[in-house]
């Protein structure tokens, strides 16, 4: 992960040319609505990720990064929009600079571009979730369980789990199909072998008995065992060159087809009758047809689910689990037709199996027709064989079975009318051949037996491999699911514990018993929270908006802790705690400070008091903030930088740009006087629109400080503390001198600072004013430069001390 040292933003969103120095520490950007704060957030996100999430997603149709990412005046010149970040890579203890231009948002320029630096930066820039806005909190807390699951899974990079699970599921299903296919092929090959050998079962004993009977005729050694490498025609003269034509076996092959046609092909098969009835019933009831079609369609889709995109309509779902669950629900909805569909499926499978059997019986017969040059018969038998293949395919789903009504009615086998004539003709041709001598018969028998034995053996080997694959794929799928489920459960329990602890810390005053429960279901992640010990409820049920905001941030922090662990070094929180009240914000500061001491938080807020609170609670340093006073199209944010204002004014004056220096000084004085008026509780007439002018603020602050110093003097006097009296006296004299100097330059101050009449001022006129203001403001702050905080009374009302943040100034205000 990274920490940001500084960021320079040019022509991005509402910003023209702005550099902010974060120094690798937490930093606050404050300012009223529309002052450009979000532009900073967008610029950080853009530079890190190449995208601005605010410009994408719901409600952003027609908005593009290249057109609407640059400042509005540069909307046709995306190349002008560029962000540069100087960053630190704690893991490498290196610094680097990254730059991204709006014209080429996918290109990240890295200096120095070294492999380890690039790898670390690319790892960091692959995490857009380091930027969190208030609207994004919703997806963690108030979102539907499915959406939450998706968001959390994406955040924690868990989507890979779904992908792997789905891919393993697909592999398992296909492995099962492969076993079914190999089983059928093995049965057919075994039947062909049995038919040729004239045995009831293909046991080793039967095979050896049949084979050895012919081997004895040829006077070759009998086979003692059916070993792995046994050759049934081993030792047969010219076996390798011998014809495999065996008259007796060929006649048996033809007879097998004829027998099948007689026994099964022409008879009334119960499966066929049931299928006809079911199809008719479905056709008579359009509602039933709809249910069956839908169920079948959805079932098919369910088989092909391997991502969050529906294979039926290409709709994107929250997750692959959510899609599966939806389709399974749809299948259940068709349950009223379920029994019928199941029966149809079973009958269809039985018929498809028979079709496969006939096809395997036809294969040697078609070869015979070919070798006997009965081309017409061969063509017709081949067509029939092809139609059986088609039928087997059509019977693989209930929906396609519905289209087979005609075939089932007219004869499911599809056997053509003259098939028996073709078979008889072929049989006659074969039978008319002279009987093979006992020797030739034995030779060809063994050659043919070896062919079929080889086919059977291959089929068994394929089946064995398919079974192994099916077992392995099942084990892989089940093992992965088991481990993934356990890991996810452990992970969610850990997130749940952190989330609950963080939330309790924020709400230490009234929800010390708070607990939360994250429960994962199929494609869902349910969140329930305790409500004052009265039960577990959804977060939006009873908790206030402020509490929900708090939950959102806490859940986010718990997830980030889980994701990054100790390397969670950077996050942008864009106005995320606006609904949380002052007391809870204080606790929030403590949470960030204590739980994430190594994390740099860039926080934006429209609330000046919250910005100050973050300083006073130590979440940010005294100078780690910038306040945007306002915004204009031409200039972008009007910036008040606490840390660097004097340097900037000096730079302006060095360029003889008095108007710029005067404007900056005025903004700074306005900012400081508002701040001082607030923290010193300066008496100023209340205005509903908070539109206090600088003159009012200045008078009130000076008056309040005077009053406080008088109190301090009176206190020191009452306690008779000489050193304290000296301190107060010294401060009062310095302050009066500064005021006098300031008053001496008042004519210029009024023109340049109060009324913007700077046109006639020269640099030499203005420099003393700057110095006077600087000296004067120093009298309102701690003399310790490292502290630099303003002096403020505590408590504000009826104060007992006047102090600074570091405690170096700590004047008693109470008399003895």
């Amino acid at each position, binding site marked *: 992960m990274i920490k940001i040292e500084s960021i320079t933003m040019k022509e991005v969103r509402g910003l023209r040319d702005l550099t902010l120095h974060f120094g690798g520490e937490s930093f606050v950007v404050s300012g009223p609505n529309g002052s450009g704060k979000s532009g900073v957030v967008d610029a950080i996100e853009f530079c890190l990720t190449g995208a601005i999430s605010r410009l994408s997603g719901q409600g952003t149709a027609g908005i593009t990064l290249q057109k609407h990412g640059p400042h509005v005046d540069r909307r046709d010149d995306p190349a002008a929009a560029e962000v540069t970040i100087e960053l630190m890579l704690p893991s490498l203890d290196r610094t680097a600079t990254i730059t991204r231009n709006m014209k080429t948002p996918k290109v990240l320029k890295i200096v120095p571009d070294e492999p380890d630096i690039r790898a670390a930066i690319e790892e960091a820039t692959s995490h857009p979730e380091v930027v969190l806005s208030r609207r994004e909190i919703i997806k963690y807390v108030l979102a539907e369980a499915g959406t939450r699951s998706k968001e959390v899974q994406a955040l924690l990079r868990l989507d890979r789990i779904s992908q792997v699970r789905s891919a393993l599921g697909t*592999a*398992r299903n296909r492995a099962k199909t*492969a076993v079914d296919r190999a089983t059928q092929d093995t049965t057919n090959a075994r039947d062909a072998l049995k038919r040729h050998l004239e045995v009831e079962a293909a046991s080793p004993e039967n095979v050896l008995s049949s084979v050895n009977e012919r081997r004895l005729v040829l006077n070759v050694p009998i086979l003692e065992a059916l070993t*792995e490498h046994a050759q049934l025609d081993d030792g047969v003269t010219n076996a390798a060159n011998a014809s495999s034509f065996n008259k007796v076996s060929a006649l048996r092959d033809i007879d097998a087809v004829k027998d099948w046609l007689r026994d099964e092909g022409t008879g009334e098969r119960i499966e066929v009758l049931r299928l006809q009835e079911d199809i008719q019933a479905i056709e008579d009831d359009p509602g039933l047809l709809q249910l069956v079609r839908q169920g079948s369609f959805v079932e098919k889709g369910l088989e092909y689910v391997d991502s969050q995109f529906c294979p039926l309509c290409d709709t994107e779902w929250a997750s692959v689990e959510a899609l599966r669950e939806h389709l399974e629900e749809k299948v259940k909805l068709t349950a009223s037709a379920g029994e019928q569909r199941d029966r149809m499926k079973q009958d269809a499978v039985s018929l498809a199996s028979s079709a496969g059997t006939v096809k395997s019986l036809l294969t040697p017969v078609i070869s015979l027709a070919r070798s006997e040059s009965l081309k017409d018969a061969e063509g017709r038998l081949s067509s029939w064989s092809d139609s059986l293949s088609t039928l087997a395919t059509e019977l693989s789903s209930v929906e396609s079975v519905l289209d087979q009504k005609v075939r089932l009615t007219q004869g499911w086998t599809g056997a053509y009318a003259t098939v028996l004539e073709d078979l008889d003709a072929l049989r006659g041709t074969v039978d008319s051949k002279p009987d093979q001598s006992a020797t030739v018969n034995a030779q060809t028998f063994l050659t043919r037996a070896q062919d079929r034995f080889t086919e*059977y053996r291959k089929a068994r*080997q394929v089946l064995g491999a398919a079974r192994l694959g099916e077992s*392995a794929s099942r084990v*892989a799928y089940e093992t992965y699911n088991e481990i993934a489920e356990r890991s996810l459960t452990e992970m969610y329990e850990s997130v749940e514990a952190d989330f609950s602890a963080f939330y309790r810390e924020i709400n230490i005053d009234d929800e010390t018993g708070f607990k939360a429960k994250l429960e994962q279901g199929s494609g869902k992640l349910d969140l329930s929270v305790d409500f004052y010990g009265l039960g577990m409820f959804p977060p939006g049920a009873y908790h206030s908006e402020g509490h929900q905001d708090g939950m959102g941030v806490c859940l986010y922090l718990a997830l980030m802790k889980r994701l990054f662990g100790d390397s969670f070094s950077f996050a942008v929180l864009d106005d995320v705690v606006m609904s949380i009240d002052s007391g809870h914000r204080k606790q929030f500061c403590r949470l960030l400070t204590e739980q994430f001491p190594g994390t740099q938080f860039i926080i934006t807020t429209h609330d000046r008091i919250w910005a100050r609170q973050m300083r006073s609670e130590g979440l940010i340093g005294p100078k780690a903030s910038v306040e945007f006073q306002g915004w204009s199209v031409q200039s972008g944010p009007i910036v008040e930088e606490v840390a660097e204002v004097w340097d900037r004014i000096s730079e302006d004056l060095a360029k003889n740009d008095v108007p710029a220096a005067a404007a900056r000084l005025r903004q700074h004085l306005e900012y400081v006087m508002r701040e001082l008026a607030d923290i010193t509780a300066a008496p100023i007439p209340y205005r509903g629109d908070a539109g206090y002018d600088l003159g009012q603020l200045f008078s009130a602050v000076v008056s309040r400080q005077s009053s406080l110093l008088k109190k301090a003097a009176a206190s020191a006097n009452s306690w008779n503390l000489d050193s304290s009296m000296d301190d107060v006296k010294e401060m009062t004299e310095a302050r009066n001198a500064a005021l006098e100097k300031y008053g001496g330059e008042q004519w210029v101050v009024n023109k340049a600072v109060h009324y913007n009449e700077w046109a006639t001022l020269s640099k030499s006129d203005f420099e003393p004013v700057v110095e006077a203001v600087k000296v004067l403001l120093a009298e309102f702050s701690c003399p310790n430069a490292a502290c630099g905080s303003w002096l403020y009374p505590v408590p504000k009302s009826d104060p007992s001390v006047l102090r600074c943040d570091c405690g170096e100034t700590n004047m008693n205000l109470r008399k003895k």
Partner: protein
Amino acid sequence: MAEFFAALGENEYVTPKMIEQLQMILAPEQKLDPDDLVAIFSPPPEEELV
């Protein structure tokens, strides 16, 4: 994933070669294609007795 592969290693049906291929295909940087997994679970037939 380490736990997954270790568990598979103890199973009689899953061969070392399958595990090796799974490790390659399921590596985080790999694009996942279910067909690759299907291929793993379609081992070539081996000789056997009747």
